[in-house]
């Protein structure tokens, strides 16, 4: 680990010894530049979200509105049904996550702790599905969903999001972790004669809880960020998740960018918070499940 080399007083000298001044210059310039580039869109989003609707078109030319109107964050909920879109997002993302966990925990268990038929093939299948594009899969998945009469339903979207975005990841993460649980633990319970079903829910699942939580959060975020499936399957506004809902207002003649940017910020905040709270764990989880 290249963490702080210095220890209290003599630190500065040692740090200079270990890393050259040039390295630090490059670091500050590159990180600073990326930081500026990252803050710019956020700044513009906030600035536009505060423009009053009256005179919106002219005010778009200013980088910061002359009359910032915080009340936009109240009136935008009437202009577009944000609350409804938000609820849709939550229902779909939560539903997909729960379904993926319910189905994925036993699957991860089977693929790591049993000699199930075709184990490696199944693992490869789950991995390979992650390599495909949702925008291409939906071309024929739409056909499957219409055969099942599931277009324009929550359940159809939950099925697709869960199977495509959430399940492969959940299975791999959980299988990767459960594999490392020591054999002795399982044998100890074998003596008690516990069935594998009981072992799964009373031993393996509780031990894996932190990893399952990470997999769940990641599944939630993937489903929340879906575009292609909802764009195609949710033809009526009553079913649209928030990002698609905001997108559906872009085609309008007079685009109310102030409200759309406000809604965009609302759509970004949940994921941003999840990411910031769990940033270390998320990467650790990804590493544990896939590669070291």
């Amino acid at each position, binding site marked *: *680990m*290249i963490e*702080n080399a210095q220890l209290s007083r003599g630190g500065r000298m040692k*740090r200079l010894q270990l*890393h050259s001044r040039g*390295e630090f210059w490059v*670091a500050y310039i*590159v*990180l600073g530049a*990326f*930081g500026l*580039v*990252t803050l710019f869109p956020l700044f513009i989003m906030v600035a536009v979200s505060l423009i009053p609707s009256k005179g919106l078109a002219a005010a778009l*030319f200013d980088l910061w509105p002359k009359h910032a109107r915080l009340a936009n964050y109240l009136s935008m909920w009437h202009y577009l049904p944000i609350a409804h879109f938000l609820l849709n997002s939550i229902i779909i993302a939560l539903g997909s996550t729960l379904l993926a966990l319910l189905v*994925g925990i*036993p*699957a991860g*268990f*089977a*693929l790591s702790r049993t*000699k*199930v*038929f075709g184990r490696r093939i199944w693992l490869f299948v789950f*991995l390979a*599905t*992650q*390599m*495909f*594009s*949702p925008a291409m*899969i*939906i*071309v*024929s*998945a*739409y056909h*499957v969903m219409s055969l099942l009469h599931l277009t324009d339903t929550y359940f159809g979207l939950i*099925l697709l999001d869960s199977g495509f975005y959430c*399940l492969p990841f959940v299975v791999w993460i959980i*299988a990767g972790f459960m594999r490392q649980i020591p054999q002795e633990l399982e044998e100890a319970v074998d003596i008690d004669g516990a*069935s*594998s*079903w009981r072992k799964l829910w009373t031993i393996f699942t509780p031990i894996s809880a932190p990893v399952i939580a990470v997999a769940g959060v990641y599944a939630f975020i993937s489903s929340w960020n879906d*575009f*292609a499936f909802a*764009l195609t399957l949710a033809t009526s506004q009553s079913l649209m998740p928030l*990002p*698609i809902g*905001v*997108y559906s207002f*872009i085609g309008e003649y007079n685009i109310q*960018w102030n409200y759309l940017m406000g809604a*965009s910020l609302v759509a*970004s905040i949940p994921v*941003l918070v999840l990411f*910031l709270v769990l940033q270390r764990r998320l990467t650790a989880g990804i*590493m544990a499940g*896939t*590669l*070291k």
Partner: protein
Amino acid sequence: MVAVLVRWGVRGVKRRQGRIITRHVGILYLLPAIILIGLTVGYPIVHIVEMAFGNVNTFGTIMGSNGFQNFSGLWESGFPVVIRNTVIWTLGILIPTVLLSLTMAYSLSLPIRLQPFFRTISIVPWAIPLTIVAIWGSMAFNALYGQVDTVLLDLHLISHRIGWLAYGKTSLPVMILIGIWVSVPFTTLTLLGGIQAIPRDVIEASSIDGARGFSRFSRIVLPLITNSVQLVVLINLAYIFNSFPIIWVMTEGGPAYASATVTTFVYQLAFTDGQFGYAGAAALLAFIVLIGVALGYVALYRKTEGGLL
């Protein structure tokens, strides 16, 4: 329901065979997942193959076989341009992303000031839904009032507003820049993980030997994180190739196919043009490429970790 079945199955088999049970019961645990993935990915892929070789009407109904006509038809409907765009798009994002992320990951591994701040700000683009990023992009690069032009005008870098998204020549580079911006966080964090796994002694020993700055980075650090680099190259390759929302929201691949990649092209063929046969053919070709990426990933996994596969 499934749970009851499984439990019942476990008991039934167990009574008869004792401890070998798990071997057979495993498939019951796996079955719900297989059904779900079969419904959402497995059967759709079969259907794509059917469409690729089928005579499909504009409603998506297959009316018999069509041989390789869909594939040859693809070439006459703009596919060469689309392939060129896809290569530019994929490499144009992949290479700068990896180079920038290597620099950023190494920078974040140094004992710099404000490290938590820089770390956090490096994650932000990843945390904003891609759709929202793209919606922001279509506003910020708008020909009439785009804020990017406003800034560039204020800085006297351009003399008049540019309709960035009107032509493939300008819209593709703009969208590539956005693509790099959203790809950097994941790549940086993964590489940072690789760098932090290098034992401290190695770095200290290298500085005693006089390796410093860029020479240490290229001769000591880089060879030790080859696996992480290969990993991010493969994952990004698939992500970027498959990327859809940025292009679809900002230009829909247009005008004509000037900014279309294979992914947006397939979607457009199917849902805008009603050309499901062509869409199937193009998607099938893409899948073959992506299977190659998946196999590369498996090879890498076996080489480094290899526990499961």
